[in-house]
C-alpha cells in the first residue's frame, strides 16, 4: 500500500515521459498538456482546501460544535417506580397496580389507513369512520399520533396485537401505562380513594393521604434522544434508580366492611334516607375495621366517579349528634361524683332557659334516676345534670372525649367538627350541648367517644393504617395516641347504663338487641338545621352508637342516617334513631363479632 502511494506510482506517468526519452520539450510544455496538469493541480488544491477545513472543523472547532450536539441530545427523563399496594387487615389487595397499555398508531407508517381502521375499530371507542379519517388526516398533515385504546390490560393488548399481526399492519404501538385497579370494587371505596387518571397520583382517601409512601421516589435517567425526542439505544448517560413505593396495610376487614355497606344500603332503601355512614371500631386498639358511606361507587368504573360518591361521610360529614352526646354529660357528672346512677332528677315536661324552652318527647314521670334519664333519653333531666356539672367541667370533658378537634385519623378529608370555647357560650349553650345540639361532630369522633367507655375510660386515637411496609421489608407500625378520660369504674358503670338503654322495657334502644350478643348503646335523633331557611327542619339525623358485648365490648359501631322517613310496619317513626339506626347496629355488630371470633354471650 505504501508503494502505491509513493511518488513514482502517482507521478510515474509524467516522469515516464521524461525518462523514455521523449522528453519535456516534446510533451509537457505543449499547451494541452500544461492545461491538463493545471486541471489536476486545481483539483489537488481544492481537496487540500477541503482537508484544511475538515481539520478546522474536527480539530479546532470540534469541542464547541460537539457541545451544541450534546446539549440538544441530552434529556432528563423520570423513572416512575411501581406504586405500592393497599391491603386490608388480612393482606388482601384493596388497591394495586398492574401492567397496562396505551394502544396508539403512527399514521405515517400505515400502508393502508382504511384497512388498518377496519381492523382496529372493534377495539377502539372510536368508530371505523372516525379512525379512518384520523389516519388519513395524520398522513396528510404529518401528525404521527392517533389513540386507539387507552389503559387496556395485558389480555386486551394481546388480543389486539394478534389481530394487528394477522392483518400485517405496521405502525401500531403499545406503550406502557401502569393501571391502578381496585379488586374490591365498591367496597371501602371512599376510604381507599382514587388516583389521578394520567399520573396515578392519589387524589382522594388513603391513596391521597399516603401518596408519598405509595408512590415511592421517582428515579432519573439522563439519556440522549433522537431529533424526534425518542431515547436512542446507545445514548444512555446516567441512571439514578427509583425507589419503589411502600405498601400500606389497612385495618379494614373486608367482610365487616362489606356487611356494613350492605346493611347501610338496605337501611337507606327502607327509610328513603338521602345518605348515611357507618363506622366499626375496635375500642381496645383504635383500629377502624369498617368505614362505610352511602352513596358509593365502584372505583373501577371511572366514569361514575364524582366528588359526591367519593365523599367519606364518616369523617367528612359534621352533624349535630343529638341524644348520643347525653352520654358525655352523664359520664362527666358520674366521674366528678356530682351524681350517681341512682340520684333522682326532677323531670318536668319542659324547662325554659332564657328564651328557649326544652321539652321531652312522650310521657315521662315527674322525676327519674340518672340511669333512667339516659335510657329514656330525657332532655330536661340531662339539662338538669349539666346544670349541676357546670359549663367549665362539661367543656373539659367534651375536649377530653375528642370533640371539636381532629381525631387524628389517617385518611384525607377529615373535618374537626365544631365546639365553641366556653367564653363564647351563650345562656343556652350548656343546655343545648348537653343534649347534643350546638355542637358538631363526625361519626368517627362519636365512635371514639363511645370507644372510650368501651375501653375502660381511655380515649384512643382511631386509625385506618396499621403498618407501612417499605420496599426493603421494613415495617412501620402505627401507635395511636391515648389518654385517660374516665376511671375504669365510671366507664364500667356507663356501660351498664348504656346496656339498660337497649335492654330495659322503657329503653329507646330496644331494637339494637341481638340474638347472640348483649349490647349497650344510645339512640340519637337531631333536627336537621336548614341553612337556607335558618331554622331547624322536620328532617332528622337519626343515629345509634353502641358497643357489644356490653360488659367487655369488642366492637363499637356508629350508624348515622341522613333524613330517614316513613313508618315501620309496627308503627315506629323511622325518622327516630331508635327505629331506623338501632336495627342496623344490631345487624352489623352481630356479623362483626362473629367475624372477629367473639364467643356469643347470650343463649
Amino acid at each position, binding site marked *: *500500500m505504501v*508503494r*502505491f*502511494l509513493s511518488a*513514482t*506510482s*502517482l*507521478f*510515474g*506517468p*509524467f516522469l*515516464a515521459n521524461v*525518462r*523514455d526519452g*521523449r522528453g519535456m520539450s516534446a510533451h509537457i510544455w505543449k*499547451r*494541452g*498538456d500544461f*492545461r*491538463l*496538469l*493545471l*486541471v*489536476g493541480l486545481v*483539483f*489537488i488544491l*481544492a*481537496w*487540500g*482546501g*477541503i*482537508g484544511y*477545513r*475538515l*481539520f478546522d*472543523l*474536527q*480539530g479546532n*472547532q*470540534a*469541542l*464547541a*460544535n*460537539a457541545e*451544541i*450536539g*450534546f446539549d*440538544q*441530545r441530552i434529556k432528563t427523563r423520570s423513572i416512575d417506580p411501581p406504586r405500592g399496594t393497599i391491603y386490608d387487615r388480612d393482606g388482601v389487595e384493596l388497591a394495586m397496580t398492574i401492567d397496562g397499555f396505551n394502544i396508539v398508531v403512527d399514521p405515517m*407508517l400505515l400502508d393502508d389507513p382504511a384497512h388498518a381502521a377496519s381492523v382496529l375499530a372493534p377495539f377502539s371507542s372510536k368508530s371505523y369512520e372516525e379512525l379512518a379519517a384520523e389516519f388519513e388526516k395524520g398522513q396528510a398533515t404529518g401528525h404521527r399520533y392517533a389513540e386507539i385504546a387507552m389503559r387496556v390490560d395485558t389480555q386486551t393488548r394481546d388480543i389486539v396485537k394478534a389481530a394487528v399481526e394477522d392483518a400485517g399492519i*405496521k405502525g401500531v404501538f403499545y406503550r406502557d401505562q401502569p393501571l391502578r385497579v381496585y379488586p374490591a370494587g365498591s367496597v371501602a371505596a371512599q376510604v381507599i380513594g382514587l388516583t389521578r387518571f394520567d399520573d396515578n397520583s392519589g387524589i382522594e382517601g388513603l391513596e391521597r393521604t399516603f401518596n408519598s409512601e405509595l408512590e415511592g421516589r421517582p428515579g432519573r435517567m439522563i439519556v*440522549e*434522544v*433522537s*431529533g*424526534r425526542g*425518542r431515547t*436512542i439505544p*446507545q*445514548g444512555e448517560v446516567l441512571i439514578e434508580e427509583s425507589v419503589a413505593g411502600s405498601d400500606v396495610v389497612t385495618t379494614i376487614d373486608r367482610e365487616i366492611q362489606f356487611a356494613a355497606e350492605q346493611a347501610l344500603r338496605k337501611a337507606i332503601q327502607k327509610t328513603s334516607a338521602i345518605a348515611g355512614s357507618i363506622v366499626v371500631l375496635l375500642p381496645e386498639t383504635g383500629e377502624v375495621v369498617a368505614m362505610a358511606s352511602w352513596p358509593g361507587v365502584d372505583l373501577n368504573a371511572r366514569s361514575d366517579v364524582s366528588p359526591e360518591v367519593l365523599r367519606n361521610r364518616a369523617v367528612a360529614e359534621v352533624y349535630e349528634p343529638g341524644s348520643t352526646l347525653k352520654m358525655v354529660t352523664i359520664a362527666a357528672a358520674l366521674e366528678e361524683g356530682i351524681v350517681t346512677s341512682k340520684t333522682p332528677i326532677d323531670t318536668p315536661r319542659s324547662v325554659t332557659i332564657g328564651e328557649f324552652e326544652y321539652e321531652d318527647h312522650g310521657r315521662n314521670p315527674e322525676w327519674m334516676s340518672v340511669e333512667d334519664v339516659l335510657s329514656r333519653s330525657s332532655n330536661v333531666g340531662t339539662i338538669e345534670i349539666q346544670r349541676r356539672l357546670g359549663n367549665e367541667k362539661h367543656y373539659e370533658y367534651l375536649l377530653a372525649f375528642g370533640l371539636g378537634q381532629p381525631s387524628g385519623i389517617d385518611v384525607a378529608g377529615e373535618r374537626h367538627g365544631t365546639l365553641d370555647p366556653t367564653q363564647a357560650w351563650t345562656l343556652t349553650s350548656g343546655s343545648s350541648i348537653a343534649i347534643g345540639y350546638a355542637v358538631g361532630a363526625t361519626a368517627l369522633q362519636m365512635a371514639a367517644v363511645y370507644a372510650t367507655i368501651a375501653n375502660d375510660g381511655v380515649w384512643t386515637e382511631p386509625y385506618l393504617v396499621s403498618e407501612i411496609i417499605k420496599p426493603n421489608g421494613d415495617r412501620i407500625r402505627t401507635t395511636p395516641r391515648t389518654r385517660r378520660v374516665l376511671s375504669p369504674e365510671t366507664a364500667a358503670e356507663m356501660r351498664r347504663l348504656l346496656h339498660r338503654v337497649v335492654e330495659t322495657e322503657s329503653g329507646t334502644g330496644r331494637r339494637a338487641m341481638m340474638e347472640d350478643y348483649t349490647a349497650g348503646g344510645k339512640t340519637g335523633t337531631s333536627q336537621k338545621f336548614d341553612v337556607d331557611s335558618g331554622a331547624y327542619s322536620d328532617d332528622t339525623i337519626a343515629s345509634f352508637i353502641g358497643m357489644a358485648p356490653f360488659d367487655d365490648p369488642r366492637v363499637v359501631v356508629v350508624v348515622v342516617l341522613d333524613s330517614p322517613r316513613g313508618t315501620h310496619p309496627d308503627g315506629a317513626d323511622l325518622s327516630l334513631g331508635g327505629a331506623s339506626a338501632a336495627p342496623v347496629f344490631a345487624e352489623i355488630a352481630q356479623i362483626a363479632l362473629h367475624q372477629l371470633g367473639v364467643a356469643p354471650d347470650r343463649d
Partner: protein
Amino acid sequence: MTEMIVKPKRLHGVGTRAANRSAGSRRSVFLLVIVAMLLTIGLGAMLSASSVISIQSTDAQFDLFTKQVMWVGLGLAALVITSFVPYQMWRKFALPIYTLVIVGLVVTLVIGDTRGGATRWIVLGPATNPITIQFAEFAKFATLSLLAAVLTKKGALLRDIRHFVVPVVAILGTVSLLLLAQPDFGGILLIVIPAFVMLAASRVPLRFVLALAGLGAMTMTVLAVSADYREERLRGFLAPFDNALGSGLQAVQSMVALGTGGMFGVGLGQSRARWSWLPNAHTDFIFAIIGEETGFAGAISVVLLFALIAVVGVSIAYRAPDMYGRLLAIGIVAWLSIQALINIGGVVAVLPITGVPLPFISAGGNAMLAGLAAVGVLVNISRASDRAPRAENRS
C-alpha cells in the same frame, strides 16, 4: 496485493514499451482499488446511517442497505462491461446516446414522479418494489462524451469562435434547460462545470473558455437567487447558526456531527446525528456520518481517496491514445471530482448545499450505476494507452 506492488516497480525500472503497457493497467488497477475502498467505506456508512431510517419507516432494518448492495453489484457489472467496450464506441455513438438521454429527460418531465417539488424520476415496475430511473445521472456522461467528440472533430477549427460557441452552447444549453425544468440545479452544475474543465483541457483558446465560464457563472448566480429554495439554501450557507432550525439546519447539524467525531470518531455504528438530527444522513450528508463515526482520520482518508482519483484520472487522460480519449477521461474525472467536492464542500459548509450525492458512497442507485460505469470507461482508456503508442495525432 503484494504481487501488484512488486510488479509495476520492477517493470518500471526497465523503461521499455513493456513498462508503458503495464503503466496503463497499473493505473487502472490503482483506480479500481481506490473505488473499491470508497465503495467499502460507503456501504459501511450506509449500514449505519440507513439503519435508523429503516427502523423508523419499515420493519426490515437492512432494507435500504440491501438495496444499495444490489445497486453496487449492478454498478460493478456495468463497470466490467464498459471496461471492455472500446471507448471509441462512445465517440461513434455519442450523438445517438445524447439524443436518447435528451428524450429521456423530456419523458421524465411528462410522466415523471414529482417528489419535494422536483420532477426527476421515472418510476417503473410494481408499486411495492419500484425501480426509479433518473436520466439526469446518465445525461452527465452522454453530454461529456458528445462534447468530447465534437471538440475532437472540430480540432483546429476551434480557434474560430463561431465553431466553438455554437456546438458548445447547443449541447450544454439543451440539457441544462431540461434539467432546469425539473428543476435539478445540482445536475446542471455537474454537467456544466466538468464541461468547462474539459474545454480548459482542450485546444480551445483559453480566452474563449474564460469568457464562456464568466457568462456561465453569472447565469448560475442569477439562477441561484431566482428560486426561493435556492436563496434559502444560500442564506443557510452564509449564516448557518443564525438559521439553525431553518435553512441552516443541515449545515449546523453536519458541523455538529463532524465536531462530535473529533479526531478519531465516536466509533462505527455509534453516530448520534443519524437519529433524526441530520436530515438526509444516508444520502447527501453521509460524509458527515463518516466524519462522526471515524473522526478526522476517517474523513481525511475519504478526501485523500478522492484526491487520488483526480490524480490517477488526470494521468490516465494525459496518457490517453487520442484527443477524444483524453477529453472524455478528463471530463469523467472532472465530473466525479466536482461532484465529490460539491457534496463534501456542502457538508463542511464551505459551499452551499446543492443536494448532490457523494459518488460511490451516498445511497442512490442511478448515481452509483452511472459513476461505476464511467469508471469502467476510464479503465478502458487507461488500458488502451498500453496498446497504442501515445497518439501524436490528436485530432
